[in-house]
């Protein structure tokens, strides 16, 4: 297998992965910072490089609706969006999941209005965390490329049949050029295979009614089946990653643990900020501090077992949320990690920091200050800081 390297932005890498997957149908609607994904893909279509029917819709609501129509018809369907676009899709996201349609969507994370802001944070995908989609958050462009290629396999797995969002930080990843190791077209084609659903709308010989009304006598069971499918995805995601690793040499788990083996303190995060935190961890380690980092790659399904196994032995942990949940103690990641740690026989002191809203940079110094606070809490020389905002003016 002859691999190639290329310098690509996140958006270009996403479009390239999509070209290699070659979905049957793509819907497209522009929004910063993900616009370039579908622009690039449109060029592939224009050049005859892919056999994809492009549906150029008049809104993201229609983009997701068209994906539902296409996926239900038996096609592999993909799209990309961000922020307001994802918010506009909200209603249809639940329908895609409820109809068990394995749609794959690349989401370049961006802040939500108001105030209007086109820059990166994870408020958009956090707003749809209960829509029933699998949510995978990536750290860099390579992981974005690799994860998108794995996504159809996860979504279409007969034990799962759920839509997948691959989330990558707006601008930080969507517009940053990184070196990416690419796979051959044929290798990707073999890996993703062909989508052959058991029941589909175009099967006129065997007519089915899709999207019926379920009253209180059946609705609960349908919802429980979705929950069970999501639980099975806990097994299928690593299984697909393992197969990807075996074929292509790059392995991705449910979580990424960095220098956690003997750690006493750690920060937890989603997405590209892990890069900053790893730098801080290295600096702390040079000073002899037993620091580490945990990045959740899957947020839905929530990898509770790994989180407990890796964090319970620690003394102090800071959870970095790039989205707020006003009216609750901190962000959604904070809530969920605290919740799964509750039953652990021993658990760390936990702090929560909302950071990076609307594209605000997390500075190494700020992250270091949080680690230092954890260090003091671990040593028992200070209380763990209460949840708050990292770097916000008064």
């Amino acid at each position, binding site marked *: 297998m002859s691999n190639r390297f290329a310098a690509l932005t996140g958006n270009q890498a996403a479009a390239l992965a999509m070209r290699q997957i070659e979905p*049957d*149908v793509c*819907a497209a609607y522009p929004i910063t910072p993900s616009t370039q994904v579908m622009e690039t893909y449109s060029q592939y279509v224009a050049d005859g490089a892919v*056999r*994809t*029917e*492009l*549906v*150029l*819709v*008049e*809104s993201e*609501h*229609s*983009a997701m*609706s*068209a*994906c*539902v*129509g*296409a*996926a*239900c*018809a*038996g*096609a592999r*369907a993909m799209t990309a969006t961000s922020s307001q676009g994802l918010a506009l899709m909200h*209603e*249809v996201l639940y*329908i895609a999941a409820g109809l068990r349609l394995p749609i794959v969507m690349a989401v370049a994370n961006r802040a939500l209005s108001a105030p209007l802001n086109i820059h990166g944070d994870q408020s958009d995908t956090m707003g749809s965390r209960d829509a029933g989609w699998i949510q995978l958050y990536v750290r860099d462009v390579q992981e974005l490329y690799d994860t998108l290629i794995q996504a159809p396999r996860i979504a279409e797995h007969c034990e799962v049949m759920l839509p997948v969002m691959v989330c990558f930080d707006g601008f930080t990843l969507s517009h940053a050029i990184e070196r990416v190791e690419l796979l051959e077209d044929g290798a990707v084609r073999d890996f993703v295979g*062909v989508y*052959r659903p058991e029941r589909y*709308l*175009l*099967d*006129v010989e065997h*007519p*089915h*009614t*899709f*999207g*019926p*009304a*379920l*009253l209180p006598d*059946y609705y609960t069971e349908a919802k429980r089946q979705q929950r069970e499918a999501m639980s099975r995805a806990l097994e299928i995601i690593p299984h697909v990653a393992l197969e990807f690793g075996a074929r292509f040499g790059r392995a991705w788990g449910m979580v990424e643990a960095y220098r956690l083996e003997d750690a006493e303190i750690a920060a937890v995060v989603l997405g590209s900020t892990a890069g900053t935190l790893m730098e801080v961890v290295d600096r702390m380690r040079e000073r002899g501090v037993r620091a580490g980092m945990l990045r959740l790659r899957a947020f839905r399904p929530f990898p509770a077992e790994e989180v407990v196994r890796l964090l319970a032995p620690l003394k102090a942990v800071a959870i970095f949320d790039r989205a707020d949940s006003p009216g609750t103690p901190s962000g959604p990641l904070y809530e969920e990690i605290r919740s799964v740690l509750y039953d652990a026989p021993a658990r760390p002191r936990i702090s929560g920091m909302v950071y990076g809203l609307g594209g605000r940079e997390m500075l190494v110094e700020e992250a270091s200050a949080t680690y230092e606070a954890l260090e003091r809490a671990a040593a028992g020389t200070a209380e763990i800081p209460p949840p708050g905002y990292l770097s916000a003016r008064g």
Partner: protein
Amino acid sequence: MFQHKTATAPVSLKKLAEQPDLLTGGHRLCAGCAESAIVRQVLMASTYPVVAIMATGCLEVATTVYPATAWRVPMLHNAFENAAATASGAEAAYRALRAKGRIPDRELRFVVFAGDGGTYDIGFQSLSGALERGTRFLYICFNNEGYMNTGIQRSSATPLGADTSTTPVGEAVLGKPGWRKDLTGIVVAHNAPYVAQTAPTAFRPHDLKNKVARALEAPGPAFINVLSACTRGWRYEPADTIAITQLAIDTCYWPLFEVIDGKWHLNYKPKQKRPIMDWLSAQGRFRHLLKQGRLVAEIQARIDSEWDTLLERCGEAPVAAASVPPPRKAAGASD
């Protein structure tokens, strides 16, 4: 003008009646609801296998309650406002999968069923997008002139003065203010190759199915606005559905016409136009208007002027108004 199959002799009603129903009985639509009659006629009229896409509304909640379904053709219901976009996706999938040899290589047809709420209002953007994109589908709007499924609220298809649950009649307000939206005209303005208005009647039983057959041959989007009488919302006896529909046509309240490749054709011209009072007085939703002479005259004037415009577009001569209204056997208004 594109070729259409019904240029040859239409199939006889008797023969049609022998065909199996593709929407079975036992569904939960009200007795007298026109929607099921319309769906059955549409499905019968197609010589192609049909894939149905449906918007939320009375039809959906009445025909798909799990674990039963009344549908014998494949059917997808997505949401209220996105049937057209859903059809765009399904139709794109059909072309893609057919080209790749993953489904049998044969002609299918995509038919959307949506109410006036799901078409004139909340689904308007999605419809407009699909028309502009050129999605090859037939979009059937059941126009019962209101949001019936949620309890008879006004829509932009609701006629002036109608009593609905969000335009109730009171001391200060006489039902729905403002005229209905001319959606058929708006669809024509999208340059769709086939646009028509029709309604299920006994006196022109072929009108609906002939239009469907022609629409299914259109090389692009086709749209048929079907007046769909609603016994609950319009307030008349269930047995009178077809008679009420007839009044809409005879008063020129709901003319039958089609626009093929931008050319307007009138399908029925009453010898004498019946007064609009006949239409109004047959339905409980207009009861409060009957003594409002000036308002009724205004409605009549607007109907007349719209009818004249239509005649002009279709290149037809004007029709005389009936001097003495013929006796009306049909439809007594009910509450």
